[in-house]
């Protein structure tokens, strides 16, 4: 998409004579840009009011000891004023190296990293495999595609309920395992199997998006490249390695980034699969939600502090990812 931006700029420069000097161009630019700013204004206002303001407010909350007992609230006709106080960076210190920091933050952090890496790798690997299969001339491939998109078509909150029936002790999966005389794990109770189940369900939910995006990317690769490669005697693996993968670069870098962001913040799957019953299978997002809304008293300050930490992790990751892409002379397609 970066290419498109450059093209857009090129066109725009082309249709108006470039100004004589830098100052002239700036002045002209200003008159021109007035429209651009007017056009992005609605979104800028909405994001400013609904995202930036809450974000600043949230940042402030993380520096206090706000919880549901000391914030302003109305009970019946009585309005109780907020009594929480400013405590500086104590929340962050407590989360990162407080007495039980490992049990609360770092263990969830590690699991979140494993969760994200495993899910995105599985999404991408399986999605690419299926996309390659669907990109062949194959009888019934439209039919296969329609079926394979199904997990995407049904809202996550519905499918996760379906999975809960299947994973329940005595549900169809364990019955099948019993039938095969394989020991059946307690999917919804044992920590390891909870995590295993969460990755499995999320993989099931996320593959269609990757598959379809990569299929789109595969179809955009010029077929003559394959013919040329074949002419030069390239094997199937070499064609995949030197034509397909480079051709998919920009799609891949985009979907992997989106995949990481979405998986890292994946709330619905774990929340709906376990509710509050699996403290060790919570990723940071669901854990932060639990702190702020799943317990009494609600710990608003810590929950918001987790949120800020999560955001920071993602921003750092994205910056490095972008720099890494640029070093490899790839561009992010979004």
């Amino acid at each position, binding site marked *: *998409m970066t290419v*498109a931006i450059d093209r*857009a700029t090129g066109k*725009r420069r082309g249709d108006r004579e470039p100004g004589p000097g830098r100052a002239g161009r700036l002045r002209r630019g200003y008159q021109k840009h007035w*429209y651009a700013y007017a*056009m*992005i204004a*609605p*979104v*800028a206002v*909405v*994001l400013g009011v*609904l995202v930036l303001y*809450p*974000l600043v*407010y*949230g940042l402030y*909350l993380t520096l206090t000891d706000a919880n549901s007992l000391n914030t302003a609230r109305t009970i019946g006709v009585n309005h109780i004023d907020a009594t929480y106080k400013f405590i500086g960076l104590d929340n962050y210190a407590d989360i990162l190296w407080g007495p039980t920091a490992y049990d609360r933050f770092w263990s969830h952090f590690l699991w979140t990293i494993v969760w994200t890496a495993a899910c995105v790798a599985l999404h991408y690997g399986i999605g690419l495999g299926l996309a390659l299969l669907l*990109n*062949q*001339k*194959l*009888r019934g491939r439209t039919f*296969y595609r329609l079926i*394979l*998109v*199904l997990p995407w*078509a*049904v*809202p*996550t*909150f*519905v*499918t996760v*309920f*379906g999975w809960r029936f*299947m994973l*329940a002790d005595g549900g169809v999966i364990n019955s099948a395992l019993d039938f095969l005389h394989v020991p059946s794990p307690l999917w919804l109770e044992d920590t390891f199997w909870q995590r295993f189940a969460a990755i499995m369900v999320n993989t*099931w939910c996320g593959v269609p998006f990757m598959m*379809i995006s990569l299929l*789109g990317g595969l*179809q955009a690769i010029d077929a003559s490249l394959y*013919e040329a490669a074949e002419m030069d005697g390239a094997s*199937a693996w070499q064609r995949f390695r030197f034509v397909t993968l480079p051709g998919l670069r*920009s*799609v891949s870098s*985009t979907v992997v980034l*989106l995949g990481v962001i979405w998986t*890292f*913040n994946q*709330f*619905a799957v774990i*929340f709906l699969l376990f509710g509050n019953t699996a403290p060790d299978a919570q990723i*940071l997002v669901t854990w932060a939600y639990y702190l*702020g*809304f799943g317990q009494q008293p609600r710990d608003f300050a810590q929950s918001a502090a987790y*949120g*800020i930490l999560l955001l920071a992790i993602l921003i750092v990751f*994205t910056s490095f990812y972008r720099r890494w892409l640029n070093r490899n002379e790839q561009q992010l397609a*979004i």
Partner: protein
Amino acid sequence: MSSTTVETSAAAGGGRPPKASRRVRRRGENSLAGSLASHGVLIVASLIALFPIAWLVYLSLGPDKDDYLHPGGIWGKMTFANYAFVVEHTEFFNWLKSSLVVTLGTTAIGVLIAATTGYAVSRMRFPGYKKFMWVLLVTQMFPVAVLMVPMYQILSDLQLIDNYLGLILVYCTTVIPYSAWLLKGYFDTIPFEIDEAGRVDGLTPFGTFFRLILPLAKPGLAVAAFYNFLTAFSEVAFASTFMLSDDKYTLAVGLQSFVSEHDAQRNLMAATAVLIAIPAAVFFYLVQKNLVTGLTAGGTKG
């Protein structure tokens, strides 16, 4: 509206696959085993994709709440009684109404606001452009927990907790940046000559946008609308925190509340889930071709 998309995909399909197919068929003829293996893998994958949904439908037909533990028994006594009960004796239609109000509101506001932005970032390179794009990307990263606490506070100050408008505003924050991205991708595919023609005829950029580009961008707008709709429809975290009275639950929250309120009547839950899933899936299949075009429009070009 959809004709443009169909044309483009048909054009793309007509341009490339013949070449590709000739190539692959030649390769395919060489190994029958390869094509059998492809079919095998695809069939297994399809079964895996299909099974959980099919299983849910099957369970929803069992009359007893513990039928999911011995599903073999359902076969002999299938009934639609669960569906009848859900429709007649639960808040299902209230939830449906809430879901529709919230999703349609989000969709309308989201698309309207995102459209001009998508156009601006597609056509104009202005100072602060890169920063603005970065902000749009960063907004994608907000975990629920960052905004949820302060938004809860703000909405309760504004008395917008348990209010459709509150939820719509919250959803707009997640939906708008991505819609702007999607629409930018689509606007990029509209020839720039059209803008030039408009300007030559004396239209301002606003005039060009409203009179020339917007009508051409209908398929793109549809894609963004579908995306907004699907996102708002399936959101759980904000909905379950900000909607308090059970006649205002969205379907996502309503389904969740079923376990406790109806004494774990799994059969009713399954029926409700199917009632939600079927229209959603049908809707999705109607639009998925467009959705895919929109998603990959930007990504595949680089």
